[in-house]
């Protein structure tokens, strides 16, 4: 990447299943205020542009963009909504800076999913209206189908997926932001209620509310603003076909391509040796293994074995989801990717408290937009 861009501010609310005492504006205000304080910036003067990541039906509005500016300090400023994950928003923010149009950008993503009483119906509403939606049912059956195809095709096992849950929920115990930290064993997961077989209750991340904000700046500005800027050295995003019928089941092409784009930008040829730790999407346990193989951090069919050998644990060679991931922190909907970016930034700054990894220089954040999409993004951060 020619233009150097840094994260100069980061903030987040705690992740909680119920935030009924706050409305969405107050929740976003809290996340944004923390990030601006962290950056030492006044959004009314020092930030040129604002990006939020949202979808109308998650929020319950026809044009959610209307309800964004005030709580971000963005009233009467360049501001836009990206219908994507937080890392898509990060990509837009980076492009704005690289275009030379702005110097400092705030990116926000949030989940106020507790306002939505019919989550399953809304997810189903995203299915193809002619071919898939009339089949109805709980939309997560798609994840069950994919898990089955992935395990069959790759040779990874249900027990190894359960190992992911155990690792991530345990990691979350050390994360003060997390909602679902718990000591869980492989047996607990295997014994949990069958849901979308082979997926069981504990294989599925629970929903949670929260707002995450990052402030990005171009290099010349970043050095003035931050003592410890964390550099974004590569980012990428990609979408596979939206047709459930046309997918290569068990393969996350969007993650492969997004990572490839990000690695190329960052000049990374051998991710396995060049990346120190990663935060990858685990809205379902199998997704962590699938995504690790897709982004080249594990060999095909090897992610489960690597996990069992302790490679991905906090004290392993390649710690994965030290934050606790979605399984441990909660499914933050479109904020999931930005939460991963936040964790990578905190780790690189040495501010990850009880879960701080040793000697980390470079980390990957990767996201997936959830059922039924085949869209995701990735970003590389360095000290």
């Amino acid at each position, binding site marked *: 990447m020619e233009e150097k861009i840094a994260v100069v501010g980061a903030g987040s609310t705690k992740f909680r299943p119920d935030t009924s005492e*706050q409305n969405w*504006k107050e929740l976003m205000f809290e996340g944004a205020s923390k990030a601006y304080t962290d950056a030492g910036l006044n959004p009314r003067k020092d930030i040129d542009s604002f990006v939020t990541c949202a979808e109308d039906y998650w929020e*319950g509005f026809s044009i959610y963009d209307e309800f964004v500016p*005030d709580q971000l300090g963005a009233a009467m400023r360049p501001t836009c909504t990206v219908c994507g994950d937080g890392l898509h928003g990060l990509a837009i923010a980076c492009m704005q800076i690289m275009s030379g149009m702005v110097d400092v950008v705030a990116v926000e993503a949030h989940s106020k999913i507790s*306002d939505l*009483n019919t989550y399953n119906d809304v997810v189903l509403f995203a299915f193809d209206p002619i071919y898939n939606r009339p089949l109805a049912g709980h939309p997560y059956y798609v994840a069950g189908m994919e898990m089955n195809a992935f395990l069959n095709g790759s040779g990874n096992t249900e027990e190894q997926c359960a190992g992911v849950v155990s690792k991530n929920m345990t990691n979350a115990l050390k994360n003060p932001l997390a909602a679902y930290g718990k000591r869980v064993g492989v047996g607990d997961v295997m014994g949990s209620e069958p849901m979308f077989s082979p997926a069981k209750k504990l294989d599925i991340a629970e929903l949670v509310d929260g707002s995450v904000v990052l402030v990005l700046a171009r290099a010349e500005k970043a050095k003035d603003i931050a003592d410890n800027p964390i550099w974004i050295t590569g980012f990428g995003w990609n979408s596979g076909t939206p047709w459930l019928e046309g997918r290569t089941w068990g393969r996350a092409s969007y993650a492969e391509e997004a990572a490839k784009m990000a690695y190329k930008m960052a000049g990374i040829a051998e991710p396995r040796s060049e990346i120190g730790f990663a935060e990858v999407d685990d809205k379902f346990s199998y997704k962590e293994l699938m995504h690790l193989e897709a982004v080249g951090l594990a060999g095909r069919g090897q992610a489960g074995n690597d996990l069992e050998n302790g490679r991905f644990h906090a004290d392993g060679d390649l710690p994965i989801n030290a934050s606790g991931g979605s399984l441990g922190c909660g499914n933050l909907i479109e904020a999931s990717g930005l939460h991963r970016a936040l964790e990578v930034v905190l780790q690189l700054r040495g501010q990850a408290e009880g879960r701080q990894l040793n000697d980390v220089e470079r980390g990957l954040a990767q996201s997936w937009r959830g059922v039924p999409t085949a869209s995701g993004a990735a970003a590389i951060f360095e000290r």
Partner: protein
Amino acid sequence: MTKPENPRGVELSSKQMKEGDVIVNKWDPRVKYAWATGEAISRFLEEMKNGKLIARKCDSCDRILFPPRMFCEECFKPTTEWVYIKDTGKIETYSISYLDKDARRITDPIFVGVVSIDGASEKMGIMHYFDETTKEDIHIGMPVKAVWKPPEEREGAITDIKYFRPLKEGEE
């Protein structure tokens, strides 16, 4: 040559739709929300039940913000104080609507507009209905006063005010 050249697309008429010439795929999405009202609006609604309008003051810019919010969008700081304001104000703009929310025609028009409320900072107000006036009399700048539902019928909603009516002479 005029661009766009040979634009594509096939028009369907209402007749074709009504007479069943085309197969229509229908879906009634089950989308239900219960928005947390938040700190500022919860208090605002509680006070509506009491027949009062309440605002928040920002210490930085000295504005009295209405509808109330817990932060000032200009200063990006938390607001500091609750302030009761009046239930009178001025019509900033209005419309006389012959359409309902689904664009169906109605014969008894709705008088609707924005009222800036006395006691709040300049121009700060809410959208509401007007009544006890006529098409001829209503005008921008007209002083108005809230007409409240009886206390037992109020439920903590913007509709606890039935409408605004012209302010009578000597009235406050």
